[in-house]
């Protein structure tokens, strides 16, 4: 009897193993900590929603999905290494970035041919039409040749600026302050807050915050340099139109230099912001606390993802609003030339959402059809709507204004900065600025801000580092300088 029971158990085990083995498995490299998404307690609503949608697809399809957590710190290095070594899972879920793709596009599945075919989960004639946005927008703005699609994903359909300044509306109201419209207003606001013993604005010089401040200042002030570069190269003005190669040309031909008045003025302007607005410990703040959330500062720069985090945080005990980094006008510098703010964001969605790519190895492993099926499921218009509904930002179609959809004044204040000024191809950033990967400009700005070097010395040192960068970039990238445009007449 015992033998019989044992044999039955054994057979059941063998059969169940056989069934399990017969089930197709798709492995997915997934952005962040999958455990948190599974437990439903992550801070990231966007990826948690994607995780749930993938599981939904797996259940409907009868497919086993194995998620592989990709810690966000250093994710692009790891994925690039895995891409080159051919060890990536079947699908990679991540925010697109061009840095690791340079020269490696042939290692990805080009999704362009699939775009003209119907999406079996969709309701349009082609997969392409399922997207709220131009499906190539996510990487149109980076290094991918126009029209080629290597990433698809979920996205809010609207035109949204991703980076905004969050401000404590209660502190502003008590101090009798309004949301600043210009950079000069912002500095005055900071002075008023300082006068009341309130630290105006948070920056962390050791993290991404620093770059988020530098970006709108540099993109605003370097406009004449950008124009000069684009005109020399005969390139149409567009988001990220200035490539690394153009920057190397600009450095070697003196168009972008440490002695350029716009470069020096951007450092001077940033120094005003640092001195009058930032927390005094900005060069090495205590990173274990959120200065804004804990009322240490009245403002901070951050991204759309914080909207949900701040909104849902139990520690949040004040109302907050947002505004875009304000326009630098002639009131602040005679070199201000742009009539609008250039900002990082998604034009008609695209960049703001989660994306997926398929490594070429998936085809060799016989999983391409399954991987494509998953991507089609995730990006069908109805699925995107379901994804959108879970996001902290409302899902506003591009032809509607935020105020038409959001009528609650508190929410309007919170969303203001993401939609004003509206993102468009004209206001999106061009990719101009410090080309060095280690952020030489920001590093040297720290020394300048602490009074160790003068503005002119900053310029000289920046120039040396940029020249070194250009020299190496030409060799590393194999750029043919003989095909470069002639140096502009001085």
């Amino acid at each position, binding site marked *: 009897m015992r033998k019989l029971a044992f044999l039955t158990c054994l057979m059941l085990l063998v059969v169940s193993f056989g069934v399990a083995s017969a089930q197709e498995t798709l492995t997915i490299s997934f952005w962040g900590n999958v455990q948190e998404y599974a437990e439903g307690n992550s801070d990231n609503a966007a990826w948690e929603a994607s995780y749930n949608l993938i599981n939904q697809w797996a259940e409907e399809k009868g497919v086993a999905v194995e998620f592989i957590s990709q810690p966000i710190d*250093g994710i692009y*290095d790891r994925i*690039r*290494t895995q891409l*080159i070594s051919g060890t990536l899972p079947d699908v990679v879920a991540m925010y697109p970035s061009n840095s*690791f793709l340079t*020269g*490696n596009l042939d290692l990805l599945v080009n999704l362009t041919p699939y775009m003209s075919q119907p999406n079996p989960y969709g309701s349009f004639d082609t997969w392409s039409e399922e997207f709220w946005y131009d499906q190539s927008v996510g990487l149109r703005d980076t290094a991918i040749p126009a029209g080629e699609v290597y990433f698809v994903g979920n996205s809010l359909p609207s035109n949204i600026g991703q980076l905004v300044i969050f401000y404590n509306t209660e502190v502003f109201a008590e101090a009798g302050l309004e949301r600043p419209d210009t950079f000069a207003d912002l500095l005055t606001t900071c002075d008023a807050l300082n006068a009341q013993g309130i630290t105006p604005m948070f920056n962390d*010089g*050791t993290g991404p915050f620093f770059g988020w401040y530098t970006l709108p200042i540099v993109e605003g002030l370097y406009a004449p340099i950008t124009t000069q570069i684009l005109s020399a190269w005969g390139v149409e003005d567009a988001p990220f139109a200035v490539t690394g190669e153009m920057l190397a040309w600009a450095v070697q031909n003196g168009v972008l230099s440490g002695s350029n008045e716009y470069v020096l003025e951007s450092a001077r302007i940033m120094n005003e912001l640092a001195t009058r607005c930032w927390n*005094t*410990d*900005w*060069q*090495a*703040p*205590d*990173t*274990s606390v959120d200065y804004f959330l804990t009322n240490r500062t009245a403002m901070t720069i951050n991204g759309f993802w914080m909207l949900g985090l701040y909104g849902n945080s139990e520690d949040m005990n004040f109302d907050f609003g947002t505004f875009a980094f304000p326009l630098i006008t002639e009131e602040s510098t005679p070199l201000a030339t742009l009539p609008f703010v250039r900002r990082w964001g998604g034009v008609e969605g695209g960049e703001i959402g989660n994306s997926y790519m398929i490594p070429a190895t998936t085809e060799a492993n016989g999983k391409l059809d399954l991987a494509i099926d998953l991507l089609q499921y995730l990006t069908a218009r109805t699925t995107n709507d379901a994804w959108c509904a879970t996001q902290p930002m409302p899902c506003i179609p591009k032809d509607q204004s935020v105020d038409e959809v959001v009528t609650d004044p508190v929410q309007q204040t919170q969303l203001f900065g993401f939609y004003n000024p509206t993102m468009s191809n004209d206001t999106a950033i061009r990719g101009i600025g410090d080309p060095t*990967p*280690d952020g030489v400009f920001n*590093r*040297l700005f*720290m*020394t300048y801000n*602490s009074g*160790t070097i003068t503005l002119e010395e900053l310029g000289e*040192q920046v120039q*040396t*580092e940029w020249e*070194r960068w250009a*020299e*190496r970039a030409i*060799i*590393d990238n*194999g750029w043919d300088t003989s095909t470069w445009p002639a140096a502009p007449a001085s």
Partner: protein
Amino acid sequence: MSNFSVAQADLDGKDVPARSASRSSLLRAIWKNRILYLLLSPTIIGMIVFQYYPALTAFWGSFHSWDGRRARFVGLFNYEFFLEDPRLLQSWVNIFLLLIFNLASLAMPLLIAYLIYRLPNAAHRYWYRVLVVLPIIAPGFVFIVLWRWLFSLDGGINIILRALGVDSQVVWLGNADTALGSIMFMGFPWIEAFTVLIFLAGFIAIPSEMLDAAAVDGATGWQRFFRIELPQVQGQLKVLVILTFIGTVQDFGRALFMTRGGPGYATMVPGLRMYNAFTQENAYGYASAIGVILFIVILVLTLINQRLIRSTEQ
């Protein structure tokens, strides 16, 4: 016999029988101890694959513009580029200062090991040893978080200073004048458990007869320490000095996690330049060149160090 005639002799086969005999005896010895060689071989193969091969690859890579996938020979360009780095001097000065400090701070574990060794009660000796070793189990991340907080504007060090009546508003890691010193201060009181244990093992191994003889001869406590006990742990000290040399030149973890080499370039070290080249620039060739230069520096320093120690002994 000139080199030519040795070669000629080989060709003529005159020396072949002797060499052949020695080779067969070597083979016999290997066969006799084949189990030992067999047991060693997985480790050696592992070392070749995971240690020697990457090191040789780095050497090869240092002469190439290499992004991990494509490589193009560029000769000495990567070396020249590194040596012409305007920040090079500062990063080596930083390493030098860290090295001096780390060598000097070996005195602390030496002192603690000696004090534990001199405790008369065996149970006390045991518990003090446990106390010294216990922090090893704390994850390194906790150590970093703690020290970052201690050095922050409203962190532990400023709290203590303010309690003592000093209105300290120093952002220790955010000030170019204090950042490197703060990194050195990390780990106060610099009692590294393994270092203490190595010294302690050395002290315990001192023959008691030697100490008894010194006592009979009327040696004082200082004489006993400097003339008998310290020379007896010289072997341990030599190993630790060499390890400190190697560890300091290679280390960039503290600079990376505490300051990212900043503010500006105040705490930049060559190892961090190598790490940044590898992770931020995908410049594997350049990172390899820095790695090779660090290897040469460590090798030279270690040889000089050994020579100095040997001459001191003589």
